[in-house]
């Protein structure tokens, strides 16, 4: 196993009844990489993401995070090993304010969750850090707004703020621009580009422009199997990829 790999997926398979959503997939993500996973609908991208994050248990195969076998570990343990994620569909604390959402993540990282008697509101460190994160994703003005009432694109940005608040070493972005207007998409790409280079990114994305502007490595899934993996230009030039996937678009 390569020592620079932050994530290593080995011979991973997931069957739902008779259906093989993922079949013997091996992927490696280097530390600091910006890797994208693309593929047509039903190719197994979401399944792969959920297996990496621990939402699903694989039928076969292993997942290694920073060299540790995490295949049998629950979601929260993997998160504490430095794995952050956003969700394809906005998955937030909808009844709380944007600030309160981010603060939940910050207080976990700061190990303040077990603080029973001091008011969270009076902790200046928590307040400052949470506001800082909201500003970073462009939601500084929206801090006190209930998340349910935020615009869709703002909720997408809050997803990123929540993930960043735990200071992950690797971030799984599940279709970060899904359902966004072109203007919102541009903003989101700029936000993702502004993330520190040390943070490893693994992105599932449908928008090819977004993929080619962000990723330095692309993995193509098709019917639960990897059909191409490499630098963007090489993948773009791959005839098989052009035929079954990119060909549809160009």
């Amino acid at each position, binding site marked *: 196993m390569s020592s620079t790999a932050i994530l290593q997926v080995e011979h991973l398979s997931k069957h739902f009844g008779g259906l093989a959503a993922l079949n013997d997939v091996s992927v490696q993500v280097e530390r600091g990489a910006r890797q994208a996973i693309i593929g047509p609908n039903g190719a197994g991208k979401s399944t792969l993401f959920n297996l990496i994050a621990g939402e699903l248990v694989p039928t076969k195969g292993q997942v290694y995070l920073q060299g540790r076998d995490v295949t049998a570990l629950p979601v929260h343990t993997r998160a504490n090993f430095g794995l952050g994620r956003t969700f394809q569909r906005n*998955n937030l604390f909808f009844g709380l304010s944007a600030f*309160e959402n981010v603060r939940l993540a910050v207080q*976990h990282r700061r190990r303040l*969750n*077990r603080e*029973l008697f001091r*008011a*969270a509101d009076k902790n200046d460190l*928590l307040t400052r850090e949470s506001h800082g994160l909201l500003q970073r994703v462009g939601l500084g003005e929206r801090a006190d707004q209930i998340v349910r009432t935020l615009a869709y694109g703002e909720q997408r940005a809050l997803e990123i703020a929540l993930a960043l608040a735990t200071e992950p070493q690797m971030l799984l972005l599940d279709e970060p621009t899904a359902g966004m207007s072109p203007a919102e998409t541009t903003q989101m790409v700029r936000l993702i580009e502004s993330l520190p280079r040390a943070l490893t990114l693994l992105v599932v994305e449908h928008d090819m422009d977004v993929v080619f502007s962000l990723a330095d490595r692309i993995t193509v899934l098709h019917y639960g199997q990897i059909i191409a993996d490499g630098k963007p230009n090489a993948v773009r030039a791959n005839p098989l990829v052009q035929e079954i996937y990119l060909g549809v678009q160009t």
Partner: protein
Amino acid sequence: MATITAQLNNAQLWLLRNRKWTVVALLLLALIFPLLVRFRILNAYSLSLAIDVLIYAIFAMSLDLLLGYTGLISFGHAAFFGLGAYILAYLSTRLTSNLLLTVPLVLLGTALAALVIGFFAVRTRGIYFLMVTLAFGQMLFSIAISWSSVTGGSDGLTGVPNPSLGLGPLNLAIDTRENFYFFTLAIFLISFWLLRRIVNSPFGWTLRGIRENDARLRALGVNTFRFKLAAFVVGGAFAGLAGLLQAHSASIASPENLYWTTSGQVMIMLLVGGAGTLTGPLLGAATVRLLQNFASTRTERWETLMGLVFIAFVLFLRGGLISLLRPRTTAETSRAQEII
């Protein structure tokens, strides 16, 4: 800003502006309440009614930590109320009724029971959690009925003496209804204060996070199981404390304290008062108790009447009475305070 002001009615604004004075006035009223009885402005029964309201308010607050804050809909919370009552009754009839000993033992006993029951129950969610907690509650009820050498069977444990408080020669007997009222009021205020600290702490916010989106919190790295279990234990211990007061107040620990109808009743109090707040349970306990008392002295069919009232609350006032008095969310409150 103007839109927010429009969302708040005059009463809400008045309460926000005069929050401190409202609390002071209510406290004063609670303190002089026994005087009103002594000078025959109110009848003697109203003192017992006030004690009853305070006990059930503690009980309802303890359930609210689970139901309103953590989103765990427990239908077996009477298990801890009843267990607290039985532990107290057993101790005070056989050993001592000194609160310095009985209070810690009741808290410990009910917290331990909540730890064991919660260990299994908290793994489930929604309707399953409701059924599991109901089953555990009914299990304790049947133990209370059948293990009569310890529990007194269907008669319960009778002859619970008055409590006392103190060490050695400084042992204060709480032997009048008036003194017991003040004692109950003190326990209520301490419980309210402690629970307020808890729900406003980072721990309390984590519980709200679980209520809003358990899975998301886990994806952030929080082991939500532990927090749910902790909430279950804290809620159980406060319910046990309410049970202790109940057994002293009624001089008996009865199987009814453990029965599912008691769980249902406290849930209705939350529904009426407003879950997810700490004032709501007090409002709910007072409303339900006073309404029951009022209706049952006037009609045989008072239970039907109560049922209709609860249906009306579910249909027309989802947030409970508290929602009439207070902005809906913390964020709204903070913005309202900016305006004021």
